[in-house]
């Protein structure tokens, strides 16, 4: 049995998903990324769709989740729908309808247009939502009034680059820390093309994190359902003998 990892009183990590009771939250699937690569000249056929479905299945199985929230960037292309997205979106939504009671999609910056949504019954689409005293929002902009104590965002695709000698490995991670007197949780991306962007070395993009003291954030790395509490960003960078690129 795969264990869950509690990071707040009612928030648990189950691999690349966060759990609040029987609802699982995932973010940043970026369906259609392969076709975007094709346009850039990298002739890579779609290969991650199968992996995404398999992983959702496995998380659902080990957590018993009944509902699902997709916290933004379901698909990759801005302002248009590619052929691959069209095909895979349909397949994904069919799958979700069959397997979850309630499906919520939170809009990200990559998906202003999403087809097939009208066909779905147990479905709603929102800019952000409050759920059990959590604000769930994609994270590309900060909503005006935040009433909840905890905020959950995606958008950043956080990972950490660990180095030992000559070897560097990037590992997907959650980060949790203070934001304007509240608790902010940033989720890793739910796709298998890259690990994400290294928060220890690369530039931060989310306005939430730009307004926060990143050094105080706690890092929970995840690798194949295992969770590793690495302490704070400050600790890791100090120990790895490195400093953050941005002056913190």
């Amino acid at each position: 049995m795969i264990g869950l990892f509690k990071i707040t009183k009612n928030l648990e990590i189950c691999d690349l998903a966060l759990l609040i009771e029987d609802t699982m939250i995932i973010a940043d699937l970026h369906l259609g990324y392969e076709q975007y690569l094709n346009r850039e000249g990298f002739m890579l056929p779609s290969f991650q769709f199968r992996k995404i479905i398999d992983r959702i299945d496995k998380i659902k199985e080990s957590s018993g989740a009944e509902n699902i929230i997709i916290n933004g960037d379901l698909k990759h292309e801005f302002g248009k729908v590619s052929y691959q997205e069209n095909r895979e979106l349909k397949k994904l939504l069919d799958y979700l309808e069959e397997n979850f009671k309630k499906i919520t999609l939170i809009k990200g910056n990559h998906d202003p247009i999403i087809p097939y949504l009208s066909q779905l019954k147990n479905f709603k689409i929102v800019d952000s939502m409050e759920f059990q005293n959590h604000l769930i929002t994609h994270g590309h902009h900060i909503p005006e009034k935040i009433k909840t104590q905890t905020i959950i965002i995606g958008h950043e695709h956080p990972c950490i680059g660990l180095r030992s000698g000559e070897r560097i490995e990037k590992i997907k991670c959650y980060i949790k820390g203070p934001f304007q007197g509240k608790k902010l949780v940033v989720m890793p991306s739910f796709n298998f093309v890259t690990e994400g962007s290294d928060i220890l070395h690369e530039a931060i993009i989310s306005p939430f994190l730009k307004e926060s003291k990143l050094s105080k954030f706690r890092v929970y790395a995840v690798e194949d359902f295992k969770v590793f509490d690495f302490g704070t960003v400050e600790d890791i960078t100090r120990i790895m003998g490195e400093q953050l690129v941005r002056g913190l």
Partner: protein
Amino acid sequence: MIKKQEKKYNSKEIYAILHPWVRRWFKSRFKDFTEAQRYAIKEIHNGKNVLISSPTGSGKTLTAFLSIISELTRLAEKGELEDKVYCIYVSPLKALDNDIEKNLDEPLKEIQKIAGKKLGIRKAVRTGDTTQSERSRMLRKPPHILITTPETLAIILVAPKFRKKLSHVKYVIVDEIHALADNKRGVHLSLSLERLQHIIGDFIRIGLSATVHPLERIAKFLVGYHEGKPRDCLIIDVDYRKKLDLELICPVDDIVAADPEEVNNAIYDILDELISEHKTTLIFTNTRSGTESVVYNLKSRFPDKYNDDNIMAHHSSLSRELRLEAEDKLKNGKLKAVVSSTSLELGIDIGYIDLVILLSSPKSVSRALQRIGRSGHRLHEKSKGRIIVTDRDDLVECAMILKDCLEGKIDEINIPENCLDVLAQHLYGMAIEHRWSLDYALEVVKRSYCYRNLSREDYMKVLKYLAGEYADLEERYVYAKIWLDHENGEFGRRGKLARMLYSTNIGTIPDRSSAVVKCKGKVVGRIDEEFLEKLRKGDTFVLGGKIYRFNYTRGMTVNVTPASGPPTIPSWFSEQLPLSFDLAVDIQRFRDALDAKFHYGRSKSEIIEFIVDYLHLDYNAAHAIYQYFREQYLYAKIPSKRRLLVEFYKGFGGRKFIVFHGLFGRRVNDALSRAIAYIIAKKYKRDVMISVTDNGFYLSSDGKMGGLESLQRLDPENLRRILTWAIDKTETLTGRFRHCAARSLMILRRYKGKEKSVGRQQVKSRILLNFVKELDENFPILKEARREVLEDYMDIKNAKKVLKWIKDGAMRIEKIDTRIPSPFAFNLVAQGYLDVLKYEERIEFIKRMHKAIIEQIKT
């Protein structure tokens, strides 16, 4: 049959076949024919394929062209010269193409003058730089002599209109063929020639080569195969040796005892002296940074003699303008000296050079000859070369090069075979021409020397890849470049954009980009983007022999500050030229001989006498070698052709080192080191660090690495298998895969009007590599990337040879333990470039890092 040309024709016989006007022009211009011309001109006239290898200054280009010009003149006189191409000249460099075009000017004009009427023989250069309007002009009035590069030739083959102008091609000249044959550009050209042959039938092939070995192989590469047998070719080999004036210079009396500063000062004094004594000196260093440093030092040490006006650098990282300026100044005799890395090795016109200096070993005999051959271009003049040695290992190496040069022992050339990426590109090009039967297309491909052994299985795999069969049926249309009809055994092109896509992405030279490194506002050098990707703030690394700390990047500029201590990031890519295997083995033989002398207690004077005699050295240099070897003999043992010495010692903090004193050249050591590291890493489940040089390699680890058993587990039969696993766990494969994916058009560098930066290509090609590995372990492009690493980048063939020596007992393995590295190990440890073999599972690595960081937090 490939055979050596024995018959030398006399002047009368040659004049007899030349058109009278051409004869008159030749007589007005030259006193007589050169040796190469006596062998070749008449044979070309008789329609024979020839490969000409002769020293510079022997009128090589004219040898190739004279019969052709004569033939064109004959047609012109009779008014039979059509608007068609008769001769294609291919060289590796655009600059060389331009020179040739200019050099043809004079004879064509003069012959026309002698004729007293307009002959209208045209010649033109067509390369990537040729404009659209020039190309349409060429279509209306095609040049009779078309001067081009391998890449442009391949494009011409699919150009719908211009290819029709090739129907009369009777001659193809491949210049500097040795510089193409040893890499994928040559492989690419070999297929273009067979495709041309398929279109127009037989033509006369003429190859011009520097001195390389074996010429038979180059000849087969030039002429290709017909029904499994090489086509006929005559080899014309004019001995270079009588035209050589070569000496070795040891800058100080005792290079072993002298400190580096003293040696350095002496080198610059000698350089200054030599430059002053000559009109124009060409100095070769082995690296681009070395080039810059020599120019800088000469100017700062002798400010009243050398300045920006009379000394310049010339290397491939410099802008085109700067290189052209250097070439022009050379032609006009304005430079006292020019310093180059490899860019001036080939035959572009740089005017008259009376001295070539090689600063430190050029790493192979043929390269030494090629470089020295750049001097003394006047007919019947000797090429004058001086090799200046820079340290003790260099002394032994340079002395051996000198010996081999004088004795005519040239190292063996390696021609890549069965390159599936180049094949993919050509099959796509062929599909664009017309539809093909599977059997016949394979037959055409197998006419190339480089594909004569191609298996049908690999051929089909490449076709299947091109047909997009790696993608699901429903989205195949995106990836399919050709259609492949298995049932009827045919294939052909698919998509309207095919020709455009092919023409804009053709070629085999990988895109590279590098970032400028600045220290306190001053440029200190360049680093590859691949290397830059690994740098983290605070890292220290070596550049141009100095250590710097990485601060930040802005655009493509890297900011660093000087630092000290051992670098935290090894240099993953070495710019250094690899030592040739044959030369390495010769040095080992010499070590054998010296070892025996010490062993049998020969006197100092006797041994020094032997060195002087064997290596053609002076007494000071011989004395230095004696000292160096004696130290090694007394402290440890002398590694040699009969003894592979393996040295074990513990470094700082108990880190374990195993030094393999295998003087095999870097390409062989690259292979052996990774295979042994893999065996160790697998057994002890940990990462092993690897450092490789020409003179050996070492492995190091924080934990146990065992003894000699890892080396003993390796044999000629299992090497390839183990290495294939090993390179999957190192950084070497990733970069090569990107190049192969681009060559086989799986990555389109120029697509839909966009050109991609190399940096973006890297991240995404890693995604592509991971995908391909999951898809099929034998995907043709992955297979090719592995082959390229094993056979071209490394030298698995000779690595097997070494393992066979060990297996047969011709080379014994001997183990020694030392407390500090032995004298021979010293340079090896100090100069290696590094890689790491990652064996630890990713999850284990994360667990270990996690544990280490958490423990640190607690304390």
